[in-house]
């Protein structure tokens, strides 16, 4: 019996050894692309949506013959929505999987943690949804497929002034998230420039569940609208507690709200709120309609902005690889930097000299448990 189990153990270890050997030979054909994503944790829908979008795009690209005669292969590494883990995930993908390009993260804080690794290893990285300006400032290998916070913050400040005629504005932001801090800052500046007034400026920490103290202070300042540039998890709780305190003015936000979870957690409390984001699923653009149709067939449910951005991010990468004509890091970087008028589902994308995508934003209104297209705000 002992002999038998020893024999089994030897067999198992031989199998394991041969398994490892096979992998290290890296004879697998294809171009490996890494995706750093929050597949679990506080902002899990961001990572999952982006991953679905990326994988759908890659499937379509491969079905059409791949790029440079090879299929694309996506390896996803979960960072559990934790900032420090994003760095580790990027390291793993770069060193273990030898990826040719890195996609991700959605959240700015986590992209900022991962980007230095990509820059150091000279692996081109494209973030689908990080809107904080600092992300691409990390280096010349870091790109993004979305607009940036100064634009998004200004969009909502102008929207509040022009559409809602709101003069007195309150802010409630998450001071632990670069995204939220940045958005609040640009919103504040634009409001002041346009002659509005910030009557309350309150903050919270990601993970908080109790916001009644800040909301009571905001209520006392009697604002016309409240800007809450946070992520969907906290927003749902904030909305509910605001309604309980009898706050009836609309809450405004950014693309951090763009998740089915906003509707699930917020329920009736989020009705009548507005937020800026990258695309509207109910837009009449045929390109968007086609994308929504195929996504729904594949995964069920309506794709949110992160799914659309993930889809475009993979598309931009494939486009860059084709123009580069090789997977060489320098050539790929230069090709990505020259991306011009790429027709994505989130709009016509041109990469500017700061490696940001220039494109329009849309404002969505929440009503009756659904997001509705409300306005397009152009980039110019």
């Amino acid at each position, binding site marked *: 019996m002992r002999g038998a189990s020893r024999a089994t153990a030897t067999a198992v270890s031989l199998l394991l050894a041969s398994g490892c050997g096979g992998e290290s030979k890296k004879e697998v054909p294809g171009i490996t692309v890494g995706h750093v994503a929050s597949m679990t944790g506080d902002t899990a829908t961001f990572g999952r949506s982006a991953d679905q979008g990326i994988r759908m795009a890659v499937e379509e690209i491969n079905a059409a013959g791949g790029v440079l005669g090879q299929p694309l292969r996506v390896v996803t590494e979960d960072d559990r929505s934790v900032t420090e883990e994003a760095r580790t995930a990027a390291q793993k993908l770069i060193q273990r999987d030898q990826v040719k390009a890195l996609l991700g993260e959605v959240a700015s804080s986590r992209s900022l943690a991962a980007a230095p690794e990509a820059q150091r290893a000279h692996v081109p990285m494209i973030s689908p949804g990080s809107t904080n300006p600092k992300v691409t400032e990390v280096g010349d290998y870091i790109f993004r497929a979305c607009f940036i916070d100064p634009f998004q913050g200004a969009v909502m400040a102008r929207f509040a002034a022009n559409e809602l005629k709101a003069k007195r504005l309150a802010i409630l932001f998450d001071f632990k998230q670069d995204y939220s801090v940045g958005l609040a800052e640009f919103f504040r500046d634009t409001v002041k420039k346009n002659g509005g007034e910030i009557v309350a400026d309150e*903050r919270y920490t990601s993970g*908080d*569940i109790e916001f009644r*103290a*800040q909301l009571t202070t905001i209520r006392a300042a009697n604002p016309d609208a409240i800007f809450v540039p946070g992520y969907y998890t906290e927003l749902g709780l904030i909305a509910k507690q605001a309604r*309980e*305190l*009898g706050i009836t003015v609309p809450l405004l936000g950014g693309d951090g709200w763009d998740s089915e979870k906003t509707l699930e957690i917020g329920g009736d409390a989020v009705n009548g709120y507005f937020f800026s984001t990258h695309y509207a699923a109910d837009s009449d653009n045929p390109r968007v309609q086609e994308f929504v149709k195929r996504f729904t067939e594949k995964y069920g449910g309506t794709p949110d902005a992160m799914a659309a951005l993930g889809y475009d991010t993979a598309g931009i990468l494939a486009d860059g690889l084709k123009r580069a004509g090789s997977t060489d890091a320098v050539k790929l970087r230069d090709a990505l930097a020259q991306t011009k008028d790429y027709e994505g589902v989130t709009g016509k994308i041109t990469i500017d000299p700061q490696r940001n995508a220039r494109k329009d934003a849309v404002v969505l209104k929440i009503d009756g448990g659904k997001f509705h297209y409300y306005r397009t705000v152009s980039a110019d």
Partner: protein
Amino acid sequence: MDNFLQQLLNGITWGSIYALIALGYTMVYGVLRLINFAHGEVYMMGAMAGYYAAHALGFAGAPSLLGLVVVLAISMVACGLLGAAIERIAYRPLRSAGRLAPLITAIGVSLLLQNTGQLVFGADPKFFPPLLESHEMLRFGDVAVSNIQLTVLITALLLMAGLEFIVQRTRFGRAMRAVSYDAPAAALMGVPVDRVIAGTFVLGSMLAAAAGILVGLSNPKIEPLMGLMPGLKAFVAAVLGGIGSVPGAMAGGLLLGVIETLVTGYLSSTYRDAIAFVILVVILLYRPTGLFGAPQTDKV
């Protein structure tokens, strides 16, 4: 003024959750001189038990007071059993091992429950089903009282009154006080010390479970690590009130909730978490017995 009253109300509601958790710390400390650091995780398990019970029994989609009561009862029973099991498995074998070993074990149990929680429930936050439709109930000037806040407050007060009754007016309560006063002497008088200690864990865990449900009701986001911070804060509340003192834990919890809310409302939420630990340090330096604790003389 209205604004201040609203903040006070917010603080008391928030503090009543701390108070319920703090009671478990203080009772266990009373009978065992043990800081049960796994207590925050019992609170997490209470919320999780409530979440699954509400979904299994179909209360998730249909808010009703009956649903709340049933879910609360199920969760309290489940956590009562969990508390008894923790005591039996982790602490009782170490009863005579001095004070350091059980303390380290408590931290171990806490980590075990956190990680088991992540494994079983998943690391993603879950959204506690709305067992009550939230709406504004009362309004005095600008002070809005929602039915949720009122439910949290009333439930917490009823549970605390119930506990006070058990401790002061029942045989079990008397036995508990006797063990707390002098365990060996109580044993000599025929008090079943083991059973009393187990009962204390059950009571404390039931209150923590109730706190979990009430948080699910008023702040409906739950996850396996949710017990960490409230656990520490409730510990501070227990020390603030005087660890070992039941009314002290109630007062300490409410006071801490009010202080945190006022600090967030009038200064900045940046200091919300810091203030609790500043209080802990100040109390330990200047009044280690807390607000309600009697000064202790060491036995020779």
